[in-house]
């Protein structure tokens, strides 16, 4: 497993006292206002546990929240496809990956924004598999040539075939999620093996903090029953579905998070739920776009998740810009840096442009470079005797050269060297074509794709996975 610890003093946008205040506000919202849960089983489970209900309206008492917070796990380990531990979601760590379901690809070879194909999806997955700093995969693009209802199955099949990295999976209906998990179980060698070493976490977006949709709740119940990891992410948008202030939207959103924690722990104590490391965002009330790189709400949700000690899923690396340019690089760098410094754990959306509607492989390669830079900038500093090399200092004296010491020869590669950022002389840069970062990123994408061969699934396993896609197509009458 990569050492993904973030060193130094923690960057926390909220103090512990402020976190307690937000938590209290969220608990109060659940007791006073309550929520509408559109899955009757969820309402029944809460009613049975002592919550007041009226139809689909549920008021959750503090005791249930306290009890659930006591059993929700503080650490979740995601494995890779081969069953080896790959990411521990706990403490001040930072793991990076792409986002899911872009409607467009910005083709780095032609500069054209167009509908993605299955080939784009497979290329993108192979790229993420090859990029050294990206730790997990998400589905990147919605392939245009498959039936929309089954796109989630095609995406899952492509991810399982194209990378060994852990998967954060998005599905539409609960049936799509069950198919995707069935594929993962086949790959793992059965439900038991998958449960013991899960390499797929299901991402569940919740409509609103206090209005939770049927399929969202059904997914939660199904996964919690099996003890499979999932991300419970209510979406509250400041100014529309929540108060316009960061704190107000954060507190309201947290009420929705707590509902997921309570439900999951009632279904199964210790059910592995991951909470948002982002929240408090607002719609851009000037353009009506949901921005991905807004500065306002950077950090507080992560601070809150750390205050609870719960595993978290963060959002950074995306841009609101339309092309790979100065804005996209700046937004990716700034958002990734704040989330890394906050210890954002599982951090998605590298490679996003156009507020999540377009994906770019060149932007993905730039994000990989940025993540690499940030890791070097936040890694704990070694001040051991060996690192300080005091013996060498003593031996070499005032004017000695450290260039040829064993210490230098052993450890010089601990320093960070760029893969994309240009540090050469002017003449060298000019001699290499006077390229921009975006051009070099595109070249790196092509070079990696030409050289990299993802580890394939065993043919019988790949066939069994594909059969699940075929069955779903048949059931849909396709």
């Amino acid at each position: 497993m990569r050492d993904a610890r973030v060193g130094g003093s923690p960057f926390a946008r909220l103090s512990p006292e402020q976190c307690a205040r937000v938590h209290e506000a969220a608990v109060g919202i659940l007791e006073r206002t309550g929520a509408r849960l559109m899955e009757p089983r969820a309402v029944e489970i809460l009613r049975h546990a002592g919550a007041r209900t009226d139809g689909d309206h549920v008021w959750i008492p503090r005791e249930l929240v306290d009890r659930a917070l006591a059993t929700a796990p503080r650490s979740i380990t995601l494995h890779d496809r081969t069953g080896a531990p790959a990411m521990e979601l706990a403490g001040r760590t930072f793991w990076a990956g792409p986002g899911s379901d872009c409607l467009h690809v910005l083709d780095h070879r032609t500069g054209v924004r167009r509908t993605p194909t299955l080939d784009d999806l497979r290329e993108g997955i192979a790229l993420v598999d090859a990029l050294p700093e990206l730790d997990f995969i998400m589905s990147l693009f919605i392939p245009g040539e498959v039936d929309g209802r089954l796109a989630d199955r095609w995406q899952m099949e492509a991810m399982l075939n194209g990378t060994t990295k852990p998967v954060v999976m998005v599905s539409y209906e609960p049936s799509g999620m069950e198919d995707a998990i069935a594929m993962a179980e086949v790959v793992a060698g059965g439900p038991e093996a998958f449960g013991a070493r899960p390499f797929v976490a299901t991402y569940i977006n919740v409509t609103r903090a206090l209005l939770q949709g049927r399929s969202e709740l059904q997914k939660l119940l199904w996964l919690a029953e099996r003890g499979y990891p999932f991300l419970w992410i209510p979406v509250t948008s400041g100014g529309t579905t929540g108060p316009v202030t960061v704190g107000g939207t954060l507190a309201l959103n947290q009420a929705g998070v707590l509902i997921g924690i309570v439900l999951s722990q009632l279904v199964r104590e210790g059910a592995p739920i991951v909470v948002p490391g982002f929240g408090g965002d607002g719609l851009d009330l000037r353009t009506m776009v949901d921005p991905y790189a807004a500065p306002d709400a950077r950090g507080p949700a992560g601070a809150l998740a750390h205050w609870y000690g719960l595993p978290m899923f963060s959002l950074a690396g995306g841009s609101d810009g339309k092309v790979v340019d100065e804005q996209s690089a700046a937004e990716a760098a700034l958002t990734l840096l704040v989330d890394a410094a906050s210890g954002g754990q599982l951090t998605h959306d590298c490679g996003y442009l156009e507020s999540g509607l377009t994906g770019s492989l060149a932007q993905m390669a730039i994000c990989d470079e940025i993540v690499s830079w940030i890791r070097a900038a936040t890694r704990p500093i070694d001040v051991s005797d060996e690192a300080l090399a005091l013996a060498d200092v003593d031996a070499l004296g005032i004017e000695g050269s450290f260039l040829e010491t064993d210490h230098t020869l052993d450890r010089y590669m601990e320093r960070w060297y760029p893969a994309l950022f240009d540090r050469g002389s002017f003449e060298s840069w000019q001699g290499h074509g006077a390229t921009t970062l975006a051009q070099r990123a595109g070249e790196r994408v092509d070079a990696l794709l030409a050289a990299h061969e993802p580890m394939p699934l065993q043919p019988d396993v790949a066939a069994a996975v594909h059969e699940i896609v075929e069955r779903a197509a048949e059931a849909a009458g396709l």
Partner: protein
Amino acid sequence: MHEDLLAAMRQSIADGDQDAATATANQAIEVGLDPLVAIDEGYVPGLSYVGSCFSSGEMFLPDMMLAARAMNAAMAVLKPELAKRSQQRSVRGRVVIGTVKGDIHEIGKNLVGTMLSASGFEVVDLGVDVAPERFVDAARENNADIVGVSALLTTTMTGQRTVVESLAAAGLRPGVKVIVGGAPVTRAWAAEIGADGYSEDAVGAVALATKLMEGAAGAAQG
């Protein structure tokens, strides 16, 4: 005549000032200004001004909501007066709106509804999670000119196609126009599913609906 009053009406909407909108509406009644003139030459131009400022990025969504609220305040005063004079504000078109089946997001749809009715359209809002048959029934029952179908999710926007198809199967197309909207919706998608139009925002939706009504009128005459 009444130029100052009409200007104050426009200004009340531009400022999103409910009290001023109510006061100018009352003033109109006092001085005997035709309420239809007050609406069409006073308040509506104010609303159009706010809409254009929003489109150009000079105003924000809350400014538009305030303007619509001020518009409603003025209408609340003027409606009884219209009734007294047996006048009716001409309906610019009848629009049935709703969010597609499987989707319970409503803010964008509500915003379009607010702007359309403030702009003189008659709006029937079917709410969220609306089955295609309900769009068809409501279009028929309300003699709709336009059906507006909202979807927020990439996963539910395919439902917009189903609504277009259902309206066609019920024999209501192309008489009933279909407009679509929602974050993932694009002009290309609208064209692909055979919808008559798409707009990025609520202001654009009013312009689109207006254009479609003009087109329909042209077609009826032609």
